[in-house]
């Protein structure tokens, strides 16, 4: 006999003047290998067509479906109900602006982050169509990719104590982005340049070291190591700057 799952889902449509924030309850019979992707779509198609949530690749690759699942930020698409108790509470990710119900606006937040971190290769080199590519050690490429695997789901920011306290904190995702460019030999920025971006309380020195970011990262990025590495690096840069004065 399969379980009857009880879903408590946050509801609010800011575009509907009659809507007030509240929780709605839905009951669904559990089927084999049920994921939150399948469950939420079934609820929308069979019980309440107004339910808002975001899915895209539904394969854990694109990061669209971050939400708070029984108190913990995670990707809904790869969350199997058999790993959860019979009562499942779903809330939208905090920090990001609410679109409606479980859907939030991550796009605006992340595009601002790209500009804050200048999330691109800074180089004076001009691309030459007729030249061979610059050589790179395969291990360097693999190390860059390790940090490039971030899918910008927003889970780390939602789980971050500092980000919840202060709106201007950049979060692990932005710090990891800086770490990615710092180890890329193609980026000509110096440690001093990176210090300008993250050498402050909005950046690496704001981190309280609670490390929920690493706990919830669905791609298992080495965020603890990254934050430690950057803190040390930026600390040294700060001291160097001090003595230069």
């Amino acid at each position, binding site marked *: 006999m399969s379980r009857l799952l009880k879903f408590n889902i946050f509801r609010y449509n800011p575009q509907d003047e009659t809507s007030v924030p509240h929780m709605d309850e839905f009951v669904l019979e559990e089927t084999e290998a049920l994921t939150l992707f399948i469950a939420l779509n079934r609820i929308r198609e069979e019980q309440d067509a107004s339910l808002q949530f*975001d899915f895209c690749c539904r394969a854990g690759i*694109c990061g669209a479906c971050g939400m708070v699942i029984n108190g913990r930020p995670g990707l809904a698409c790869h969350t199997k109900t058999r790993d959860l108790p019979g009562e499942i509470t779903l809330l939208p990710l905090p920090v990001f602006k609410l*679109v409606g119900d479980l859907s939030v606006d*991550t796009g605006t937040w992340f595009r601002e982050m790209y500009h804050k971190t200048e999330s691109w290769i800074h180089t004076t080199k001009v691309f030459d*169509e007729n030249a061979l590519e610059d050589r790179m050690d395969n291990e360097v490429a693999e190390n860059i*990719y390790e940090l490039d695997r971030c*899918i910008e789901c927003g889970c780390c920011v939602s789980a971050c104590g500092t980000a919840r306290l202060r709106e201007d904190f950049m979060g692990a995702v932005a710090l990891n982005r800086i770490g990615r460019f710092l180890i890329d030999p193609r980026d000509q920025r110096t440690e001093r340049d990176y210090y300008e971006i993250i050498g402050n309380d909005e950046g690496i020195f704001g981190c309280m070291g609670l490390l929920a970011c690493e706990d919830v990262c669905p791609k298992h990025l080495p965020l603890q190591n990254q934050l430690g590495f950057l803190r040390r690096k930026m600390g040294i840069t700060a001291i160097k700057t001090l003595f230069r004065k």
Partner: protein
Amino acid sequence: MQTIYTDVLVIGAGLAGERAAIEAATAGHSTICLSIVPARRSHSSAAQGGMQAGLGNSCMGDGDCPDVHFEDTVKGSDWGCDQEVARLFAERAPIEMRQLAHWGVPWNRVVPGKSTYFKGGQQFEKVEKEENAGLITSRAFGGTAKWRTCYVSDGTGHAVLFTVDNVCAQHGVEVHDKTEAISLIHDGETCFGVVARSLRTGELITYIAKATMVASGGFGRIYPNTTNAVICDGSAHTAVLDTGIVPMGNMEAVQFHPTGIVPTDILVTEGCRGDGGTLLDVNEERFMHTYEPEKAELASRDVVSRWMTHHMREGFGVKSSYGDHLWLDIRHLGEKHITGKLREVYEICTGFLGIDPIHQLIPVRPTQHYSMGGVRTNKDGAAYGLKGLFAAGEAACWDMHGFNRLGGNSLAETVVAGGIVGRKIVEYMEGTEVLFNSRIIDETYAAQKQRIDDLVSGRKGTESVYKVRADMQQALHKGANIFRTQEGLEECVDALQKVLERARTVGLRTNGKGASPELAAALKLEGQVKMALMVAYGALQRTESRGSHNREDFPARNDRDWLVRTLAYWKNPDDMLPTLQYEPATQVTEIPPGDRGYGKMAVISSDDSKGKEG
């Protein structure tokens, strides 16, 4: 009504659209990409395997060059492609890979010295050259003479999209995400932009542009089982076909990928087989080499999917509560390889199936994966029928894939075509004056507003959008799948026409306020059914087998009568069938139709005397 003006408007912010946007922005044009999702969630990010480009850096790709790549692509297309376009693509691909390296893509690189690899379950040794150390390396993919697929682990699409989106941010390309184009604005000659709907607020926004580009990806979601993301639903195509004057090319050419996992239909990359993985049947025995002695598991996708389906029909499928399937075996590749170069595959198997691919077999079967058809363009990416409208990537029928595309050729196409078409858009911008007609803009806006009001009020009926959509998907699945027959296709067309009538009487269950997912689904439904009819009716009329289009009642490739591309128009909104026209597959023929070297089938040669009407 909010109106936004931009020089260049791109529908879609995946690789093709953003690559073109970079060309426009760096040439000084204001450029906006509209996207249903934040740019980096576009389906390009899910492409795992890699991009084909004839660089020839790895020892297994030694001697590779655009000529060999071109030949593989034409054979792969079963001579359905435009050879001029395939040539353009193959020549440009290596340069584009280097451009991406310059922008920051962490391509895997050549590591000199000895290493081992697997083929057909057996281990071999190779030695990479010292002089190529650190250059972009490549892996094997199906239907290729050389190891040609450049890759970043098995997250190539992700890594390239992040890089290209970074460059967009750098150059001031605006991405308006959670915004869906629902109608083109045009006067029958020139495209002026689109009416779009905000998926944040539900508000309608008019975008006016000198040049508009469709780069919205594929439309696999008109099938019930697809590897495609939920956003790949063809909504931008519905806006294009609604013009009645822009045709869709080769809509019957639908690719089924051999390794969608069972259940959930998520893709595991062709790289699994490229890196030496094998396909096993119910007896856990290999079978592909008995059908394809030469290429075995690495024949082209259409051929492998066909043999897999055939083998299951012969009774060698594994029974499961989700239907028959086969096994993919990558156990022999070892833990380091699987958790390194096939890491995404490892995560998908453990995360979604609860299967550890280092020790266990992966359940797979052929699953809808790619749309070779799409908005028909010329070699510059300019759409047929409307000035100022362009298309590139999977959304377009450019047409380098013909009736079957090779693995690694579509991801490469996104950036190569994006670059080429982007530069053509810049040329167009510089030589064109566009007069915007405000009456037409207002009328299009009003018509869309009316369409929404009708759906919300239920004036046309009360059909459920989700039920009608499911019936469309099932009809297509049943009749326009890997193996096709006249009877099955006639039934399919018949069923879809009934679905079309119901799609015209959909009414919402909700008030449609705000982002309203129900309204978003309803707005595209009628157009989706029309696309489904283009697939089914095009397949019914095409009485031959070519690439992925396989007619059991017409098993031969017929170069005498069918070396043509289907152009499907939806001339009047109230029509019940598309209007089909045909054009020669290619104007330039470098390689005349011949044997592909795999997937042996009968061929009716163009020299055979009996004509089409004879």
